[in-house]
């Protein structure tokens, strides 16, 4: 089954075409560009490019998988709305996967690992995975010092992801180089059970974790200075 994977939860804008079979998930074509300010420009051409490279028409897709974040909202929505609208037109299910799982799950190697991505405002989005790659805490958004404390409590022995690299000193954990951003094949693998079973698609609701910034009218300045 041919599956399109998109993730725009981090500065890396990712589109991939994967083949999901009984035996596993294999990558057929992959595009990833790191640019925190151009998700809207980059994603659609990348989707177009992976389909063209594999000589696949959109109607050949059996499902779409999208990273639900957490991630900076504006960029995150680009991936989710792309997946939702394409799924709507093609009449195929769209499945969401926590984007941090695409970092933490493939990085797991016997001991607990912390996955973190940059949340701006001096915070990180984070989750902790056990030795088998199962998420045991998070996703959450906190200051790196708070995350370091939680990681100690959970006996984490390594950290992975762009956010972990950015705040390596505060976290004080050995770093894994890869994956730095959500891995498309891993995201597809985490949805493979639903894909193979033909499970119904889901509303792709972002993992926002933060409330919108909004100034209530009651606290606004009067019209006159």
């Amino acid at each position, binding site marked *: 089954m041919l599956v399109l994977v998109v993730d725009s939860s981090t500065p890396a804008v990712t589109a991939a075409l994967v083949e999901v079979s009984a035996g596993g998930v294999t990558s057929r074509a992959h595009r990833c560009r790191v640019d925190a300010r*151009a*998700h*809207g*420009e*980059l*994603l*659609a*051409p990348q*989707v*177009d490019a992976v389909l063209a490279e594999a000589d696949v*028409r*959109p109607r050949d897709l059996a499902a779409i998988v999208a990273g639900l974040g957490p991630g900076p*909202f*504006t960029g995150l*929505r*680009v991936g*989710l*709305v*792309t*997946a*939702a*609208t*394409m799924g*709507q*037109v*093609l009449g195929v299910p769209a499945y969401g996967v926590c984007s941090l799982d695409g970092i933490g799950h493939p990085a797991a190697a016997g001991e607990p690992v912390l996955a973190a991505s940059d949340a701006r405002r001096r915070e990180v989005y984070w989750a902790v995975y056990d030795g088998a790659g199962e998420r045991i805490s998070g996703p959450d958004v906190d200051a790196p010092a708070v995350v370091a404390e939680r990681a100690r409590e959970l006996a984490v022995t390594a950290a992975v992801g762009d956010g972990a690299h950015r705040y390596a000193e505060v976290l004080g954990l050995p770093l894994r180089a890869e994956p730095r951003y959500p891995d498309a094949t891993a995201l597809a693998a985490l949805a493979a059970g639903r894909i193979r079973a033909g499970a119904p698609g889901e509303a792709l609701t*972002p993992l*926002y974790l933060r409330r*919108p*910034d*909004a*100034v*209530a*009218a009651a606290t*606004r300045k*009067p*019209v*006159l200075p």
Partner: protein
Amino acid sequence: MADEPLVLGIETSCDETGVGVVRGHTLLADALASSVDQHARFGGVVPEVASRAHLEAIVPTMDRALREAGVSIADVDAIAVTSGPGLAGALLVGVAAAKGYALAAEKPVYGVNHLAAHVAVDTLEHGPLPEPAIALLVSGGHSSLLLVDDLARGVTPLGATIDDAAGEAFDKVARLLGLPFPGGPHIDGQARAGDPAAIAFPRGLTAPKDQAAHRYDFSFSGLKTAVARWVEARQRAGEPVPVADVAASFQEAVCDVLTVKALDACRANGIGTLVVGGGVAANSRLRAMAEHRAAKHGIRVRVPRPKLCTDNGAMVAALGSHLVAAGVAPSRLDLPADSALPLTTVSV
């Protein structure tokens, strides 16, 4: 006619998620989801709240539009989307959605200018627009006077507000008077019972000295402040505020300036058609005053019905249909959302 372009239009530049379907100049569907209630308690549109609402609303709104029009996305010739100007995060949801639809259905996508779409929507009501025409666009986000030489390829900005948009002034004055957000319909309603000549509020940028630099520009900030001072003086004196009279006098000042300048632009350029669009074009006094004054000069005023004046998907589809018919090339898939898209750019 079956050979006229069938175009989908997507609008998400502010707080309305709109999907319209148009064939040529015929409106087939105009589905709308609004997040206005979620913003009311903040007294204005909160960008992140609007963006979240667009993401939730886009798929169901598209479903409704296609059902209402009785067409499938496979039947359409193109997908048009507002690529600017507007709220950056809100625009991005619509642009990404349009690309998703275009990619999946293998259709061309047109990123279009929101303001040009406000002009184009009138073709759904009154047929092809004579060119050149003058357009007056007034809403909560914009107040502009344009010369429309060629709606498919370029419009010339003549003037714009130098401070508040006209709709913004309505919202702020409504708040002063204790009326709910958005203020336009409430001011309009109160004004019906008031005396428009009760209070002489200022008409911004209409003095002879303003003619050289600001002949076609607007300013509503001084008017808003004058209303605030007037109301607060009453309150300080412990006197009741005559809400209907204030609303009517304020509305009269706004409509007076808008129509005087729009008709001045028509006469100075020898143009016989004035199109009025944007949310404030739904104001009953503006419509009546524009028609009354234009008639004296033999100028025809075209104002679409109120539902088409406010932001909607049909206006974007109408412009898209016009672009397809004019043979304009579609946008590329890396089309950006541009919150400050200049008026001179009709399609990207």
